[in-house]
């Protein structure tokens, strides 16, 4: 297991290197001299231009420029952003990365759960109108023109119904005299969520392993209890209302992202279920006298999960792309929105920096999926 993880991490690092090379190639392979774009940007004061030229080694030969570039990537210095001058690219990214991670992670968990659940059901009821309706609905959501769909969500839930804010990360009026930095607070919120999921996970593992009666009840109880404790703790800090503001801003983007991506998992689960249902061990499970629900959940769905998780790897890049669009429509100031606005404003250092981080993010998600897969499939031992 440890060896597998190490070798996988090495592979990922290698891929990352190749990725960075490709980015460099893309940036340099275009007509005209890239150094002009970097150095001659009119928004830059002369002294900054000087520094930039040194930092990127723009006066050096090409191979040295490449080495400098690689060093810069691995030390996280992507130079100075044009549009956020004088902030560095690294600084901008450090502020925005957590927001994207939170958005993406929540939406992925929701959409995977929803997709798997629905996929299971439509596979079991093949041929009925439920299946056609769900399939067509799901496919439509999956292939919907995302900006328009996001817009419709805003229009419906924020503009007309007024349930949620129209966009952005927080409400500036509320935060004008806030005693705490938004990012610090957001960091704490994420820590809380992490602690909560660890507690719930541990309870689940223990109750399943022990095979005690009433495991369901204990699980449910523990969730309710820990959520209550968490809410109480936040109340006591006095920042509860500020945290709530951020949560409120998060709901609509997460919902939209979930809706546009769950169908991928759903359709895949369906196909995978249909293929698994033909296996002999499913017949054997029925012959053993297991009720249909147990056959479906314990045997068919459990085995059908494997290919679904495998292809989660493929869909990660897609999900990140979806996130980019959603962020920019909702003006959620994360990596995606940064990438788009930097590209539109031709803020090259920031665009490249954001893109590299989006790439790293996808790679890490891959690694996570690989690890999960090892736990799911006993046939894989390293």
């Amino acid at each position, binding site marked *: 297991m440890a060896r597998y993880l190490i070798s996988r991490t090495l592979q990922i690092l290698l891929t990352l290197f190749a990725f960075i090379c490709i980015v460099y190639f893309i940036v340099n392979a275009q007509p005209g001299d890239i150094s002009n774009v970097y150095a001659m940007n009119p928004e830059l004061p002369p002294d900054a231009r000087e520094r930039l030229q040194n930092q990127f080694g723009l006066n050096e030969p090409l191979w040295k420029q490449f080495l400098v570039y690689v060093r810069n990537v691995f030390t996280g210095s992507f130079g100075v952003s044009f549009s956020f001058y004088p902030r560095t690219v690294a600084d901008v990214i450090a502020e925005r990365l957590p927001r994207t991670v939170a958005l993406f992670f929540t939406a992925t968990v929701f959409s995977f759960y929803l997709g798997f659940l629905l996929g299971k059901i439509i596979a079991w009821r093949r041929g009925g109108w439920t299946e056609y309706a769900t399939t067509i609905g799901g496919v439509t959501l999956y292939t919907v*023109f995302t900006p328009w769909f996001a*817009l419709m969500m805003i229009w419906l839930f924020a503009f007309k119904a007024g349930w949620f804010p129209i966009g952005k990360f927080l409400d500036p009026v509320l935060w004008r005299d806030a005693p705490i930095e938004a990012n610090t607070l957001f960091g704490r919120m994420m820590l809380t969520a992490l602690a909560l999921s660890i507690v719930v996970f541990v309870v689940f593992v223990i109750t399943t392993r022990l095979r005690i009666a009433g495991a369901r009840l204990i699980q449910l109880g523990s969730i309710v209890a820990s959520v209550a404790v968490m809410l109480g703790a936040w109340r006591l800090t006095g920042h509860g209302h500020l945290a709530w503001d951020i949560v409120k801003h998060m709901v609509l983007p997460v919902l939209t992202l979930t809706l546009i991506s769950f169908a991928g998992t759903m359709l895949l689960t369906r196909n995978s279920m249909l293929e698994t249902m033909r296996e002999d061990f499913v017949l054997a499970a029925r012959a053993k006298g297991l009720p249909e629900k147990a056959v479906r959940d314990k045997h068919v769905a459990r085995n059908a999960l494997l290919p679904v998780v495998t292809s989660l*790897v493929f869909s990660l890049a897609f999900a990140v792309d979806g996130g980019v669009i959603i962020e920019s429509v909702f003006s959620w100031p994360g990596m995606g929105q940064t990438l788009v606005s930097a590209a539109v404003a031709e803020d090259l250092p920031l665009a490249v920096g954001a893109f590299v981080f989006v790439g790293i993010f996808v790679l890490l998600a891959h690694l996570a999926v690989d690890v999960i897969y090892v736990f799911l499939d006993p046939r894989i031992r390293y």
Partner: protein
Amino acid sequence: MAVDVAPQEAAPSIRKVRLTLAMRSLRENWSLFLGTRIGVIGLVIIIFYLVLALAHPILMNTVWEERVYDPVVGYAFDETRQPAPPSWNHLLGTDPLGRDVLSQLMHSARTEFLLGLLAAVVTVTIGTTVGAVAAYYGGIIDTILMRFADLMVMMPGISILIVLSALIGVEHFELALIIGILSGFGGASILLKSQALSVVVKPYIEAARAAGGGPLHIIFIHIVPNLLPLSFLYMMFTVTGAIFSEAILSFLGLLDVRMSWGLMIHTTEAAGYLLQVGAYWWLIFPASLSITLLCTSFYLVGRAMDEIVNPRLRRL
């Protein structure tokens, strides 16, 4: 070798038999396709847009006056205020710059089809070749091609297109090529390779080798024909991806294109009508719905083909 008369007689008759066989299998698949329902829905939508796309040049040459109805430089002189709501002259109204929305919609449909088709053909050509070659040769060739494919798959496609189009001017043709190359070397080759791998281990490949068949014979006579159904299916998904990407990029104003559905929405946004959904619906809905419908329809056709091509999904 002396050519005698007989082959000229036999060759056409064999060809005729082959044609008959091909038609028969096409008919069988067609009836299976009709049975899937979702495929039929998709096909109807595709045909609808195909008709729109084909009708545009005809209309422009007959009924529609060019200086009014040109999708890019036309102006609706008959309307006093732009954007104008739908009327008899302009069935879907005009955009903020006074251009006819229906004409724009129909004109773009053609571009979308061409873009999708080109991207899909490039993807599948690359994917099928790479997949077949990697599966047949294995070893180091396979490793290199597949590591590269892994890398391509991990690339967030839209993001890379965003960066690219910020760096260089991208038009429809280039966009189709880039999408084709990205997905051809990425997802398509991985998928088609795994399919090719299941073909390569079949005894008939060994039988062909025992008969004296070389790599080219085996790849193009045995492996590729068995990949074609899956390739064709993957084409459908690539069309969806290409149209979708184009729409996103032109919506963000990053493409150097003169007219497309994405650009129509971009224009609407730039003019500030985007959240006035009720009042200016004709600016928002036609283009957005068209993108969605066309993407969905190709995807549905792909799904339906999956039900036919994948024997493990077939009904008993």
